[in-house]
């Protein structure tokens, strides 16, 4: 049985969980995919990467999300500082110990200084590996940003074409965009389901379904996701008396799933930023004459805040006020990865707005490898009780 036949025979959730757990360290699923299809693998670091470009050139774009505590940090301890985030350190360890060797290219963007320097030290230690660093624009309010990003995507294409042996074909790119739009629609549908009826879909199932979208071929994922959501929407489960919590800060490093389960015992986590990039980008305009420019505009004209992307026209305080109102939020949980400066600064900006609105919030720090969650559970429980019992 081939890999894809095997995948087709599996229940969606079983497949989603399997590929997620495989992606902590091994990526054996992707290795087999490469062997069986002759395709190319591109690994990319969070938060956002224009997947349709890689897809149209014959790559399987795969999100590298750290080792979630499943690898011992040995080389990373020597090569990186102790006061940087765990996802960067474990990603370095994965690269240095050969776990990313079967990826034909690795891509990084300017989400933070740590990720940026990580790209460089991986290149220095793996000189034969193609490492692409994309500088995504931050001055998105000026017209030149589009020309710049268009040229930058052109630079990405120049790096990838020789690896796959394919030239960029605009019609192929348009088809890839359409496929990724389908993926976005389904993830958006799941997002809405969590907002409206979070009791139907436990956090870990939601997480597996999200993460698998960054690991599987998009064609297979779309098919499985459609079937999965159909099943979830038919579920008959009772709503519990829980507060509705907005989770902010988990946009890059992955919190341990037991931590999120512990949180969910105390509250409905109706919206969070897990694997936010592909959800944040929204629907890319398939009707745009130039599909590469469509991807550019989806990025530069996007007025939804993203901690790792500055946009001069965005008011983050107004946005959190709207989120709290629109999602009927009772409290905000700032779930901040240890040493993640972007999240730490956005915390201050957003908390100032919440203070003015008298919306309760708590801040918890986490690391991908942590194993004790009682303190976190108790903190959120205490907050929930104070809201429910006034």
């Amino acid at each position, binding site marked *: 049985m081939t890999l894809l036949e095997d995948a087709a025979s599996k229940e969606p959730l079983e497949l989603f969980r399997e590929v997620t757990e495989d992606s902590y360290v091994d990526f054996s699923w992707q290795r087999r995919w490469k062997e069986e299809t002759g395709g190319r693998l591109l690994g990319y670091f969070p938060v956002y990467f224009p997947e349709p470009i890689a897809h149209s050139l014959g790559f399987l774009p795969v999100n590298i999300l750290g080792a979630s505590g499943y690898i011992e940090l040995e080389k990373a*301890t*020597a*090569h*990186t*500082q102790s*006061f*940087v985030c765990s996802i*960067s350190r474990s990603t370095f360890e994965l690269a240095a110990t050969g776990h990313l060797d079967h990826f034909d290219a690795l891509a990084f963007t*300017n*989400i*933070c*200084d*740590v990720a*940026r*320097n*990580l*790209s*460089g*030290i991986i*290149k*220095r*230690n793996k000189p034969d590996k193609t*490492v692409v*660093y*994309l*500088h995504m*624009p*931050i*001055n998105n*309010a*000026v017209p*030149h*940003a589009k*020309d*710049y990003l268009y*040229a*930058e995507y052109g*630079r990405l294409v120049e790096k990838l074409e020789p690896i796959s042996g394919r030239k960029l074909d605009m019609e192929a790119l348009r088809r890839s965009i359409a496929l990724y739009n389908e993926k976005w629609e389904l993830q958006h549908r799941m997002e809405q389901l969590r907002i409206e009826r979070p009791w139907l879909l436990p956090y870990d199932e939601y997480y597996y379904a999200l993460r698998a979208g960054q690991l599987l071929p998009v064609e297979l994922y779309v098919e499985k996701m459609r079937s999965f959501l159909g099943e979830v929407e038919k579920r008959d489960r009772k709503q519990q008396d829980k507060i509705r919590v907005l989770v902010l800060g988990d946009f890059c490093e992955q919190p341990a799933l037991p931590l999120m389960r512990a949180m969910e015992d105390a509250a409905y986590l109706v919206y969070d930023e897990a694997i936010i990039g592909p959800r944040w980008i929204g629907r890319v305009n398939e009707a745009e004459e130039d599909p590469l420019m469509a991807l550019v505009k989806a990025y530069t004209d996007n007025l939804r805040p993203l901690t790792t992307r*500055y946009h*001069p026209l965005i008011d*983050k*305080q107004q946005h959190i006020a709207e989120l709290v109102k629109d999602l009927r939020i009772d409290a905000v949980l700032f779930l*901040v990865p*240890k*040493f993640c*400066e*972007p999240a*730490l*600064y*956005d*915390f*201050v*900006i957003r*908390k*100032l707005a919440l203070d003015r609105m008298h919306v309760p919030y708590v*801040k918890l720090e986490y690391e991908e490898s942590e194993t004790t969650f009682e303190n976190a559970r108790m903190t959120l429980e205490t907050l929930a009780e104070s809201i429910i019992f006034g």
Partner: protein
Amino acid sequence: MSATAKGRALMSEEAAQYKVPKEYNQAVALQSQLVRKYFEDVAAAAAKGKKIAYGLVEANPIEILRLFDIPVVYPEVFSLQISYKGGALPLMLAAENEGYSTDCCSYVKSGVAAVPPIGTGQTPLGYVPKPDIAVLTYSGCQIYIHWWEQYHYWTGAKIFTIDIPYVRDYERDHYVPRHDIRYVADQLMNVISQLEQLTGIRYSEEKLREILTYTADAWDHWRMALEMGKRVPTPLDGYFEAIYYMSLITLTRGDKTTADYYRFLVDELQRRAEAGIGPTPEEQFRLVFEGVPNYPYYKEWWSLFKRWNARGVAGTYPKVAGVVDYFRFNPDKPIETIAEYMIHAYCNWNMLMRADLLKYYVDAYKADGVVIHSIKSCRSFSMGQGDFKEYFVGMDIPTLIIESDHVDPRYYSEAQMRNRIDAFFESLALRKGLK
């Protein structure tokens, strides 16, 4: 006291306390005087109701702000100066009280906490006004963006953004795509038109060229001064002293006074070289420094090296405002040259180029080893410094990594620092056959 086989002291408190004779150390005093005047001028301008801009050290387009007669405050500079004068801790605590984590950059914390609404603007340096506009030059430091956002949300300051792409092509050394230069240049023109509206002053390319001529002159002499570190013995400490000397190239570049200052500096260093005078009584060790210094204990920290008669021959930190070894200003192409200057800030260079620059310093400046000061606050500098160490050790270049912070005094432990540094020099002495 550590002694050589010949009985000569390798390490001494006398060397630690050594001061360059006054007649050979006037540039530091002049620099202090000019920096003080700069702060006074800014405070006076604010008192007269002039609009104040906040600027960043890396990639600051001071020539353009000078053209529009806008006084610029550099929070990095006032933060480090406050820390140098021992005033950082209350600002750290005030910022943390507002929700800033101990893991946030201490430049940001002291910069935000010093001015209203968290602080009063009254600092050990005198009055520091809050910003009316904040010129965001995103080059080499992502935290710049978050920092400027803090000012925006706390004070309402309008942010003028200039996005500067990273030098990022790992296959082509020093390669800067044309679209990067065009993007930065276009944004500069965009900022210029905003400044025209703000000030009512018309942009003059001729005037900008004139300002840039002073800049180019100061820049060339700044490079000449730093390159004196190649001499054996070196007449200057290319790290500890260069950090004093670098203030004006950031703060007041683009006028005659600053250009004259750097001529004066080169002249003084030349006189030092001729008289055989340097920053320590003699030159026993030659070191290359990577990283931001420790400002709260600057002199104490420096003395840990001076006591071994060690001189910094070159350092990367004095290049944060531009890799002077590599880049030259061209006043004939004013906008393009400023764009290129902004791209070539040290931390905007990728890690391969940074490692190569350090290796070049070791070779060209005939250094005995590399000292990496890794500060907790600045991941732009620090992330991957461990990798540098592995790289240099692999090439048999003695390398020491030490950790503290540039502003927050809570991360400095003199005993630990001294032990690490002493052990490093002991091994260097053995290697050089001094023991």
